[in-house]
């Protein structure tokens, strides 16, 4: 039985090796070498790509990527938590319908959704036409950081709502009744019981929003109009335009390390005070 189960895992292991382990090793390899990538004999060990990252220009890009990702993650949390709370309190009959409203956008293509935001925010877009129609001066949102942040919030909000909702819906209603029974009104119940019990959901939500937000290049390209260069754009450029795979690989490795560090900090926070409820992953 045990052996048979192991056989079932082989295709997945092969898949993992070909599409995850090998590419990762290649990225690592390119990041610590220099030379012509089309001529293996010209490659030699070098940490030049890593030292280049410490150029103030690139550090600024990394800083900006983290700043925008943190801002949009915070907004997702501020917007997403109440949404999750509302969905979890909706009557069971309507719950799936309300949940659908938040999930349907995910089913649409990511690019399509971002293009939709372009047509809303662009200088001749929906918002500015409306403002002109009302006799108000037009707004200069896109291209710009505000537009990028809006795009990130819109695209990643469901990833904040879902894990928080999952944890919220697992809370036993009688625990909330117990809090009320012991003298807690709704606000105190929320602060002392609901919020601490949903910490695992919040942690999951933050991780699931922060990771794609910090590494995105599509949103910043489309809504930033090429002006808002993020680390994702920088990496993409190294592979497609600059053809500098060594530097691109070094940037990827550094981004990965930074994400891993943030996740480690997150899981530490979770272990410290998120004892209630199981994290969803």
């Amino acid at each position, binding site marked *: 039985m045990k052996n048979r189960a192991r056989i079932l895992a082989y295709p997945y292991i092969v898949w993992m090796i070909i599409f995850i382990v090998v590419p990762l090793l290649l990225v690592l390899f390119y990041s610590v070498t220099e030379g012509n990538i089309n001529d293996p004999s010209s490659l030699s060990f070098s940490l030049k790509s890593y030292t280049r990252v410490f150029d103030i220009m690139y550090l600024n890009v990394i800083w900006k990527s983290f700043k925008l990702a943190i801002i949009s993650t915070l907004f997702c949390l501020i917007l997403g938590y109440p949404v999750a709370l509302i969905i979890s309190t909706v009557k069971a009959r309507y719950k799936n319908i309300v949940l659908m409203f938040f999930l349907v956008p995910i089913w649409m293509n990511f690019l399509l959704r971002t293009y939709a935001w372009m047509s809303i925010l662009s200088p001749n877009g929906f918002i500015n036409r409306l403002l002109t129609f009302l006799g108000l001066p037009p707004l200069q949102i896109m291209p710009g950081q505000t537009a990028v942040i809006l795009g990130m919030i819109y695209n990643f909000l469901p990833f904040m709502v879902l894990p928080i909702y999952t944890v919220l819906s697992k809370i*036993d209603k*009688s*625990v909330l*009744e*117990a*809090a*009320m*029974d*012991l*003298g*807690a*009104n709704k606000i*105190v119940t929320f602060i*002392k*019981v609901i919020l*601490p*019990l949903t*910490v695992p959901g919040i942690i999951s939500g933050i991780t699931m929003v922060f990771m794609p937000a910090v590494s995105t290049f599509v949103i910043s390209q489309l809504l930033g109009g090429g002006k808002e260069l993020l680390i994702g754009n920088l990496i993409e450029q190294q592979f497609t335009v600059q053809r500098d795979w060594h530097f691109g690989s070094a940037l990827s490795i550094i981004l990965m390390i930074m994400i891993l560090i943030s996740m480690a900090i997150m899981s530490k926070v979770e272990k410290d*005070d*998120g*004892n*209630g*409820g199981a994290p969803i992953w």
Partner: protein
Amino acid sequence: MSKKIIELVNVTKRFNGVTAVNNINLYIRENEFVTLLGPSGCGKTTTLRMIGGFEDPDEGDIFFDGVRINDVPPYKRNINTVFQRYALFTHMNVYENIAFGLRIKKVPKDEIDRRIKRMLKLVDLEGFENRHVDSLSGGQQQRVAIARALVNEPKVLLLDEPLGALDLKLRKEMQIELMDMQKNVGITFIYVTHDQEEALTMSDTVVVMNNGVIQQVGTPVDIYNEPVNRFVADFIGESNIIEGVMIEDFVVEFSGRKFKCLDKGFSHNEPVDIVIRPEDIDITEPEKGLIQGVVTSVVFKGVHYEMLVEGGGFEYMIQSTDMAPVGANVGLTFNPEDIHVMKRGS
């Protein structure tokens, strides 16, 4: 008699048009141990939740210490609840769970400390302060839940089937502990259970409910010995319920003959239900019995034998330490005080 602490007047509760509690009237006295007893769906938990403030009655009024509390939210009632599945705060340790209510009331730190120490001693959990509630056994969690409620020194403690999840031995122990606690702290307990034995063991007063209606209120002895109707007789303990006719005061006819009894106040020849508890019937030689019959089944139950005897047009259940084998002809005897006559239910 001590004063009424809780009073329900013409209280009705419906869920989506289904009546859960139907026009009940009930009062509970200070320091009483009252049990609401009935099968599941009889409205006992709904009644308890209305007293706790978790459900609003559709009709009628609930009074606490003479004041109408229909519109008072649970967190403003001087009542605490022990929930069916404990409902402990899993993100807190034992100490913080018990301290929850006191912290909200802004009780000084040293007093919180003192009261929790005393509570932990009362529920026999000293030294468990820093334990995580998930690491406790069912019985221990239950005691934390009781401590968490009692530490607030409520006037009334509501207990919703608090021992339902425990195994038999632990349940028996906890029954005794709860009774002792109630005596020691002097708080009114309102206890909900479907276990008739638990109700009879623990309560000062038992309220038997069925289909949202109170069937009988009385001491455990009254409820057991003088059930008012077929439902109560059937629900509380084992019983033989026989149809009969009340000929006149102190004379009842069933199983084809007349018997002396202690009941009166029925109309002449009124159809009635008669209850005789299985342990009140003795078996003798056929000619000495009031009713003659044949043993159809014998089951050994440990302390006694449980026999079925076919006779007088009825199958009598008898619990006795004497045994007669299957097929034997026996006589059944019982005393006038063992015959309980009840009005025929609709």
